[in-house]
């Protein structure tokens, strides 16, 4: 079953990325931090069950755009967002939208692994508990096991679920954070440079995991590493100075980009 859907996705990829429907649509998105404008009318759509990589030099607005997708920018005091972003038809900046519910649908994994100072089990069951996704102990056990399995961590931690999550290695912590996000059963997972604090081996594991998660989730990942973008994503969007420069199939982006600036960035001429 799993094999089937993965094969289907691969096939869809092979045929034409453009056939995949949009999960999130960003229209004329602008972000201001106080007086400073950080994003300029970005139009970027995220396709379902696809890994979309956001690349670009530091300070180009890629993380800012990512954080508009689940309104994490709301937690920054003087930040304003203009434009329209929809998640399946729903305008996520509409006043009637419950931010808490939105963030349950659009989960997030951060740059630095940030497990809570609690046990591994409690870290994973945290989301389901506050959203009331399970009642009995057995249900929780099942969610925790499934989530850890999806994050490829189950075999490493199944014997020490009640030890603190902060005692794991950096790579394990990041996969724990992914399990924690997965446990809420979001539709979209946002990843903000999830491997920048990890060593190459842990990075490889997380990348492999991202690849597998694509079958169940829509993923948007910000990365500094062009190789990583090329390895894990199907679509790539290039930001520069708060503007979206180009958005394209990853293969095309890294072989024959439409925009000269993308070409230069990928060749390492700036950034």
């Amino acid at each position: 079953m799993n094999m089937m859907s993965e094969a289907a996705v691969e096939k869809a990829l092979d045929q034409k990325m453009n056939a995949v429907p949009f999960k999130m649509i960003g229209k004329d998105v602008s972000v201001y931090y106080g007086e400073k404008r950080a994003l300029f009318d970005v139009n970027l759509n995220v396709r379902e069950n696809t890994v979309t990589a956001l690349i670009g030099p530091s300070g180009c607005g890629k993380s800012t755009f990512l954080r508009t997708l689940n309104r994490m920018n709301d937690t920054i005091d003087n930040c304003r967002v203009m434009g329209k972003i929809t998640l399946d038809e729903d305008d996520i900046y509409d006043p009637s939208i419950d931010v808490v519910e939105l963030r349950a649908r659009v989960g997030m994994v951060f740059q630095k692994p940030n497990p809570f100072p609690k046990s591994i089990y409690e870290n994973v069951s945290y989301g389901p508990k506050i959203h009331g996704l399970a009642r009995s102990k057995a249900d929780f056990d099942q969610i925790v096991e499934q989530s850890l399995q999806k994050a490829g961590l189950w075999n490493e931690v199944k014997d020490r679920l009640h030890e603190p999550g902060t005692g794991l290695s950096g790579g394990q912590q990041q996969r724990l954070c992914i399990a924690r996000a997965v446990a809420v059963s979001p539709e979209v997972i946002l990843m903000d440079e999830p491997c920048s604090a990890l060593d190459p081996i842990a990075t490889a594991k997380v990348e492999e995991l991202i690849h597998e998660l694509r079958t169940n989730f829509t993923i948007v990942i910000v990365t500094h590493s062009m190789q990583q973008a090329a390895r894990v994503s199907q679509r790539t969007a290039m930001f520069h100075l708060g503007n979206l420069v180009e958005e394209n199939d990853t293969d095309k982006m890294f072989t024959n980009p439409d925009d000269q600036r993308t070409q230069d960035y990928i060749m390492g001429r700036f950034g």
Partner: protein
Amino acid sequence: MNTSLILLLILIVGFAAYLAGRSRAIATSNGKLSVLHSLPGYHGTYAAICAIIPATIVLAVWAIAAPAYIDSAVRNALPQTVLSQGAATSELALGQVKSVANGLNLLDDAELAALNNGSANLRDVLAAKGVPLAGEGEAYMVKSAAQFNQMTATSRVLMAVVVLLISAAGAVFALRGISAPFRARNQVERVMLWTLMLASSIAILTTIGIVGSMLSEAIRFFNSVSPASFFFGTVWDPRFAAAGSEATQGQFGLLPLLAGTLYIAFVAMLFAVPIGLFAAIYMSEYARPGVRSIAKPLLEILAGIPTIVYGFFALVTVGPFLRDISAQLNGLVTGNYVSFIQAQSVLTAGIVMGIMLIPFVSSLSDDIITQVPRALRDGSLGLGATRSETIKKVVLPAALPGIVGALLLTASRAVGETMIVVLAAGVAARMQLNPFEAMTTVTVKIVNQLTGDLEFNSPQTLVAFALGITLFCITLCLNIYALYIVRKYREQYE
């Protein structure tokens, strides 16, 4: 020449040495400053240091040692008849000699001559000059006083000469040492280091001195009262220190005082902890920067109010208010309008002390809550938790060890607090659990035992030192443990 004038002269010599040192260094460099190891300013400073510091030290030692030496010399020269009457009498005589000496300085030659040939009364002559004398002056006193005056004058002159010579010698020594490779900069650095070390060691030595003096007095107390009956006694009844009545000793049981101290501190914490903690959470998590920048200092003003003012507040406002409202409540329920809360009670002292402690709890906890990394909050918010869920389930558990440390620090303040309990808690040393009645604390009893006309060798007063050292040990342990916890917590996130 008096001491401050000498000090001024030393400073002038020092300043001159500075200027000379600088210009000499510049001259040595032949116009190329880069050949000097240290900049001319450092050479100048070094010369000034050599001129000032040794001379000042000698001045200080002289100013302390010389009077002591002169005293003992004059005392030994007193007539045998006085010396043979014991230390107290000779000390008294010495005091009189000193005031006579003081008076002699005001007399002119004619009056002096009259005194010396016995034609004038010493006491009357001095009284005319405004110098009172305790008793009738005796003949030997004029001689001793003259000796005293003469020695003092000699000492002054000698001191001025020696100190200024040392100052000049220091300056000359430093100036002759100036050369291009001389490391004046490093020398100045070393002097700085020693100055700073001196400052901090004074603070530490003072603490040690205080503890030492408390300890020695406490030991004197324990010589007359056994430690067991002090630490485990349940009755506090020190009696009065009646002169010569060694037999009627009071009972010095620490436990009722300790119970009162801890009970009142507990009630205070009961008020301060929730309010302070909630204020801290509001400040650190919810308040916008504008609100925070106003509200936080305002809250901290509470910490700046002198505790005696809180004491008034308890005595004049809170205590009577609680008494009256309890009478009303009692009347409504039972029809009998008798107040069941005394104006001076554990509750009154506890509430007011709690108000005093709120800013400590909130300010310390606020710092600790703000230290919880933003990443943890983002992680929780990113999973769709609300703010209060995030605070309850992530931020507070993460900050808990630090908050516990902060609360311990606050508790140690509550235990050592004096003025509020003196005015609001009462003086009855009892062991009981009713918060509406008066209890007393260790600090109140220290104040009580040391108030009034006392002789400082009876257990009734010495017990204050035993109480003091006990209190010191309690707060010290609380503080050390709290700092240990807070520090351990800090390391976790650094």
